[in-house]
């Protein structure tokens, strides 16, 4: 609507006016380059900052005069995201084309060598694939566990009953805990000597139960803790969907004598599908980044290493910054492909309806 509002005459390039953003950019660039080459970093940073502010101000004034409210509204968010997110991302993308270790302070352009090494090196490639497989496994297991548990919990709470409000908050609590505490306490719960699981089993057969004695146990332990922590998130989304189904649809269904299975698929499911997709999307993104629980529980032992943990190791512990960046971009690529697939499916479905 307002976008198509009066298009004013664009001011001449050399016209000194508060909304001449082109001139502002030119001046800003010139001053910035000058400052950057003349002053030390700490001083020139603020000069550059001032120039950015000037350019931004001119753009804002320009947008305001042209009644371009969309740009005005979006720009603060874009600015914050750019400075704190996108710019560092691009920076590390750039780094991934260099041989650079943060502890060494030397930098050498090597093009795609980091990537090709990761994908073809006979030591690194199998490791990458192993980690990728593990990550995929954890993603599938944790996300499906969360979806199932979250869904069942939601179904349970989708009724009105006394004390519901108080019971619901109990179930929501796990996701408010700090991962450190969860990791440390679950390693206690799983401990063969002190752990509650082992002790209950021991009371029954006299043997200590060693959960982390093999990969199955280790994976189960990690998946359980993660699913326990984040199922409430899924539950909340599904519950919101469930309570938004108009009651008269269920009434109509009961009068039409629709069976409960059919009722779920034709009435309930369409209402929660979008939210399930959303939960799936967010949980999958998070699951791909899973590292902290693994660090706390197994340290990657029993073949539970994930890509994200691997990135932390090489980028942080071993200071192979550029190799870590390259690895993360491979990971990002996988995640983007996956999420696009999700969004594609979700959009296609919604277009059908």
């Amino acid at each position: 609507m307002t976008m198509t509002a009066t298009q004013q005459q664009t001011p001449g390039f050399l016209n000194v006016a508060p909304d001449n953003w082109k001139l502002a950019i030119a001046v800003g660039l010139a001053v910035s380059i000058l400052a950057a080459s003349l002053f030390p970093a700490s001083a020139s940073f603020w000069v550059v900052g001032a120039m950015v502010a000037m350019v931004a101000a001119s753009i804002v004034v320009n947008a305001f005069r042209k009644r371009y409210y969309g740009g005005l509204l979006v720009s603060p968010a874009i600015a914050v995201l750019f400075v704190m997110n996108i710019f560092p991302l691009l920076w590390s993308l750039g780094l991934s084309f260099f041989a650079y270790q943060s502890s060494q302070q030397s930098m050498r352009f090597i093009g795609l060598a980091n990537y090709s090494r990761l994908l073809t090196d006979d030591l690194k490639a199998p490791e990458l694939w192993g980690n990728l497989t593990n990550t995929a496994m954890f993603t599938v297991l944790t996300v499906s566990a969360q979806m199932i548990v979250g869904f069942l919990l939601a179904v349970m709470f989708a009724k009105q009953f006394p004390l519901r409000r108080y019971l619901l908050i109990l179930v929501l609590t796990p996701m408010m805990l700090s991962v450190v505490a969860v990791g440390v306490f679950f390693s206690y719960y799983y401990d063969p000597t002190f752990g509650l699981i082992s002790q209950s089993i021991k009371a029954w057969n006299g043997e200590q139960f060693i959960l982390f004695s093999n990969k199955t146990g280790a994976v189960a332990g990690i998946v359980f803790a993660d699913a326990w922590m984040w199922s409430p998130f899924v539950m909340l989304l599904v519950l919101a969907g469930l309570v938004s189904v108009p009651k008269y649809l269920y009434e109509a269904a009961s009068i039409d004598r629709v069976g409960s299975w059919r009722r779920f698929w034709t009435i309930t499911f369409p209402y929660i599908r979008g939210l399930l997709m959303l939960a799936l999307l967010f949980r999958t993104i998070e699951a791909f980044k899973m590292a902290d629980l693994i660090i706390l529980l197994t340290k990657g032992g029993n073949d539970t290493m994930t890509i994200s943990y691997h990135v932390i190791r090489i980028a942080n512990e071993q200071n192979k910054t550029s190799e870590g960046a390259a690895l993360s971009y491979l990971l990002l690529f996988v995640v983007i492909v996956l999420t696009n697939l999700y969004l594609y499916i979700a959009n296609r479905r919604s277009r059908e309806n």
Partner: protein
Amino acid sequence: MSTIEVKKITKKYGEFLAVKDASLSVKAGEVVCLLGPSGCGKTTTLRMIAGLERATEGDVIIAGKRMNDLPPEKRDIAMVFQFYALYPALNVGQNIAMPLHFEKLSKDESDKRVNKVAKILHLTEVLDRMPGQVSEGEKQRIAVARAIVRDPNCFLFDEPLSRLDVELRHSMRGQIKEVLSNLSKATVIVTHDQLEALTMADRIAIMRDGMIEQVGTPHEVFAKPANVFVASFIGTPQMNLMEADLKSFNKGMASVSLAGSAVEMAADPAVSTLKPSKVMIGIRPRAFTAESSAGKSTIRAQAELIEPMGAETLVHARTKLGGDIRVVVPRTQRVKIGEVLHLKPDPKQTHFFGENGRAVRA
């Protein structure tokens, strides 16, 4: 046999009494409208019949069987909801076919039934569309189609036409009536629109504050309202209800002091039991004739506001005591503002109500 019988049902929500001792029986092939202002308990009554609410007390008997404790799906009924309750994820055909799954019909048979009702209700064109893609009137017909696609014990309609515009409403009234008349099922329609009730119903049950005030044919409730509420609720323009002093009653003639005039009028013999006392007299706006001069049985009033209604004209007139009288006169009779009218009520359409609000009739 497709019948519905409701015996003294009561619904309480905590302390709040939604329906009290309502009784109603609907014969096979009969259409009964539950009519009343919003919040009167008519929808609750319908939902108790459907089994969507449980009656706190009383019995619901459908097809001769007590069904109080049965859930809706066991009652074998069909219902059309106010908001139609179309399943948003299914297309029109699937929506209509939904009640048929229970009967485990073959695909062909079920398609045949769907097509048949679709034809009756002119829905053949839209069977493949989604509910979001059809018009309001079509939605309404889909809801009806879904109800009549099978052969239930009875039909229940909850404000079926309230979301349609005037024209559609008019045509749908006819269509539904026609469809229902071919089915010979007990049918209950909930509505707040008296025109709908008067045109569609065989009998009307008028409810207020959780109680059924009167049950009768459209003619009965119009011509013989049981009490002041029914009298004022049924009929447009609204019946004039005026307080009066009943002075005496002699040989079928009551002499009353009405709106500042002393009036003698013919009245039901039962009125004699009321005297002497304050009474409420109800006269329909169309039951006046405007005389040229004051007489024994005329009321004097001055025209204040004139509303032409096409064939007739509605005149609001002020009585001596300041009360307002609505009079409908033929279009040909020109009334000017300020003109003094001498109104003579038609004794056959004059209703006397006692102090308890009940009509007094022999």
